[in-house]
């Protein structure tokens, strides 16, 4: 029964994809219905599965052999323990909600069919990645996730920026993916088995410390790509070129979540390499900090959210690197819900401000033209992101802080605090600005009733989860994630510190943006050089552009040149040499018969001399 439910949750989206592919071109509406209803079935099945399977003693395993060669075998199938289960459910549910939302958002897009086809495919790939039995199979779906995100980011391919962003996303993540692939290959070579259950239990003991470090490093390279870690995060802000639901999906439960999930999934293996852990922690913290800084001056709402995603992902990675898989994972879960909600809301506000992403344009829209519900949810989401009690974000962050304190990682703790402060500042900056009452008169958009549901239901559900979800499921979560939320002295100390930091952040944001007059840059303008660095995006985009332009395209041009001037020239010259030889030889054939005879006689005499004087 549980296996069947699992089948349903995994293949519901896939089925939708297949059906949509084979639907005739003109059946656009029906394809939307198919997608949403199948996703709904999947979400339902996974939720039921969550309740039935959560406390089950043994994971579901279901295996079919896929590829075999002399030294190893690769299987595909399910390995569903609680970790995967939780992830599965959240992916299914969030994806369903986002698809529902897309019914509104994509209503007028002619290419809806393609959109829903791809998004169901995307969801399926992510789900399959999550439940995959084998690391190799995980890799397969990992790549498919990349493909789907590529197709979705480039969905509006008429825009040059969308095309560029899609390629950037795919190539940069692929760069990381190859690390993953190399890791898989090395694992196969070293331990001949890449089953997840094997890797997290026995593989570590069969590997030396160096091998382990290499493998962990390579896996983390994949994570850096997918989860947008320094220095590969630059694709993520650009990925905002896709439709907003896509951003919501990519930034919450799929794509970027895959990286962190992979880290958590393999945590027992990764944990064994302390150097690897340090490295992961460092990279996570660095990315988190840098992207948080980048968000400080951003005006594009979606990009702010994107940077915040990077930052939060870095935060999770840092937590995992610091040694708490549960901290990372739990934050991933809570973050998935409120971040997807924020993105969906951004879709609404962009719509409300006549398709401008700029928060200061949104500020110009009169308050009465903004839905109160949406504003409320925006604040909920923003504060959850900032980590304010009692929202889900608070809980998951507090968990991490608690762990850090408990294990005396004070350095990391302080970095985390800084990030927390920055997060609180820029999220509330965004919320303050968006919820301003503007005076620009704009004609009011009306949203038809059916669509209204599609718009409101998903965000409301996500909002509810953000507010109440963790509290409802608290006992389960606490048990499973071993949350560091004992109400002891340290907890209160921690609570005090973090709340102070968050409130300070919000307060500063209020000072600059909450009142009647506001400055665009806020306090950042006072820090010398910071705005410059932000404007240059820490030179990272420039660096990667240079790698692309100077490196790859430079080499391409070099290849082109050598092709023309070395390889082809060599071949052509052989031909020319033959022709030249022909011309030279025919000089002997000058038409004078006596010359012919002289040549012949000379050769004959030479032969005669040879015959006379040989040996």
């Amino acid at each position, binding site marked *: 029964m549980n296996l069947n439910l699992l089948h349903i949750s995994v293949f519901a989206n896939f089925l939708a994809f297949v059906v949509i592919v084979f639907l005739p071109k003109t059946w656009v509406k029906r394809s939307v219905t198919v997608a949403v209803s199948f996703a709904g079935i999947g979400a339902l099945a996974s939720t039921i599965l969550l309740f039935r399977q959560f406390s089950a003693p043994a994971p579901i395993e279901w295996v079919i052999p896929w590829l075999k060669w002399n030294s190893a075998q690769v299987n595909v199938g399910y390995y569903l323990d609680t970790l995967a289960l939780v992830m599965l459910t959240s992916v299914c549910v969030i994806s369903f909600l986002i698809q529902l939302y897309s019914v509104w958002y994509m209503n007028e897009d002619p290419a809806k069919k393609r959109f829903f086809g791809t998004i169901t495919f995307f969801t399926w790939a992510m789900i399959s990645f999550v439940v995959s039995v084998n690391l190799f199979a995980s890799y397969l779906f990992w790549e498919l996730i990349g493909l789907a995100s590529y197709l979705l980011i480039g969905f509006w391919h008429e825009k040059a920026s969308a095309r560029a962003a899609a390629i950037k996303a795919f190539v940069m993540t692929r760069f990381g993916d190859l690390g993953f692939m190399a890791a898989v290959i090395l694992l196969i070579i070293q331990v001949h088995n890449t089953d997840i259950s094997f890797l997290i239990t026995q593989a570590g003991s069969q590997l030396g410390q160096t091998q382990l470090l290499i493998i962990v490093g390579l896996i983390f390279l994949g994570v850096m790509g997918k989860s947008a870690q320094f220095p590969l995060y630059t694709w993520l802000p650009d990925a905002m070129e896709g439709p907003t639901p896509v951003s919501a999906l990519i930034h919450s439960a799929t794509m970027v979540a895959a990286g962190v999930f992979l880290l958590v999934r393999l945590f027992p293996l990764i944990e064994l390499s302390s150097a690897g852990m340090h490295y992961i922690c460092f990279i996570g913290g660095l990315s988190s900090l840098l992207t948080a800084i980048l968000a400080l001056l951003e005006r594009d709402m979606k990009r702010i959210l994107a940077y915040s995603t990077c930052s939060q992902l870095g935060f999770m990675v840092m937590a995992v690197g610091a040694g708490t898989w549960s901290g990372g994972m739990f934050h991933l879960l809570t973050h998935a819900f409120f971040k997807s909600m924020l993105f969906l809301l951004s879709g609404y506000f962009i719509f409300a401000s006549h398709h401008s992403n700029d928060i200061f344009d949104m500020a110009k829209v009169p308050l009465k033209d903004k839905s109160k519900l949406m504003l409320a949810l925006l604040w909920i989401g923003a504060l959850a992101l900032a980590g304010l009690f009692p929202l889900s974000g608070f809980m998951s962050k507090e968990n991490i802080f608690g762990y850090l304190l408990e294990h005396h990682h004070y350095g990391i703790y302080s970095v985390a605090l800084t990030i927390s402060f920055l997060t609180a500042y820029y999220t509330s900056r965004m919320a303050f600005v968006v919820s301003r009452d503007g005076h620009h008169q704009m004609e009011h958009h009306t949203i038809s009733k059916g669509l209204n549901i599609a718009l409101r239901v998903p965000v409301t559900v996500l909002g509810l989860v953000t507010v109440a979800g963790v509290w409802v499921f608290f006992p389960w979560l606490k048990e499973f994630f071993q949350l560091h939320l004992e109400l002891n002295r340290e907890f209160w100390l921690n609570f005090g510190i973090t709340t102070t930091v968050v409130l300070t952040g919000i307060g500063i944001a209020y000072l600059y943006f909450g009142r009647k007059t506001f400055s665009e840059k806020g306090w950042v303008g006072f820090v010398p050089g910071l705005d410059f660095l932000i404007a240059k995006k820490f030179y990272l985009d420039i660096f990667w552009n240079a790698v692309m332009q100077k490196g790859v395209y430079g080499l391409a041009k070099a290849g082109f040149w050598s092709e023309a001037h070395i390889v082809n020239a060599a071949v052509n010259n052989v031909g020319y040499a033959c022709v030249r030889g022909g011309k030279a030889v025919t000089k002997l054939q000058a038409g004078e018969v*006596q010359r012919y005879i*002289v040549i012949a*006689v*000379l050769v004959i*005499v030479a032969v*005669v*001399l040879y015959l*006379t004087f040989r040996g």
Partner: protein
Amino acid sequence: MPLSIGDLIFVCFVGITFAGAIMAVSLKNIFHNALSLALTLLGTAGIFVFLHCEFLGLMQILIYAGAISIAIIFAVMLSPPLSLKPKKRSVTKVLVSLSVSTLTFVTLAYIFIRTPWPISANADAGDFSATHIGEILISRYAFAFELISIVLLVAILGALVIAHEEPGDRRLDPEISLEDERWAS
């Protein structure tokens, strides 16, 4: 080594032959060349006699010195402006030809002198007579003898066909003159 009379005569014939040969290839006038060739052939006939081949010597004079030379002279006569206006020799060509033929001669002479020829002890004992030649010719070499008649037939007929003057040939069409580059189509 003292020279006998025979030697002297032999040397005379050789001298005639050489002189004729050299004149035949070096004089500029074709007519003189042809005459020199006849001289050479005469000299050669004399040498043949020294080789006990009187019959061949006769044949040489009859066929060669007679028929061939006359045929050549005939050709010379037939073609009025045939005698080229003596042009200057190309020095390069003479040098090249001279060195090539000298090289050849040196090579041949070296070989001939170095070779231990299997000379028979009683060299002059055999039957050199024309009768014997005739016997062998129509027995052993009968087939070749028959064949040579076909060769001669072909040669004569061919000469007739090729040298036959077409009515229109005299009028030389300037388009197909030697200077025209196009006739090689």
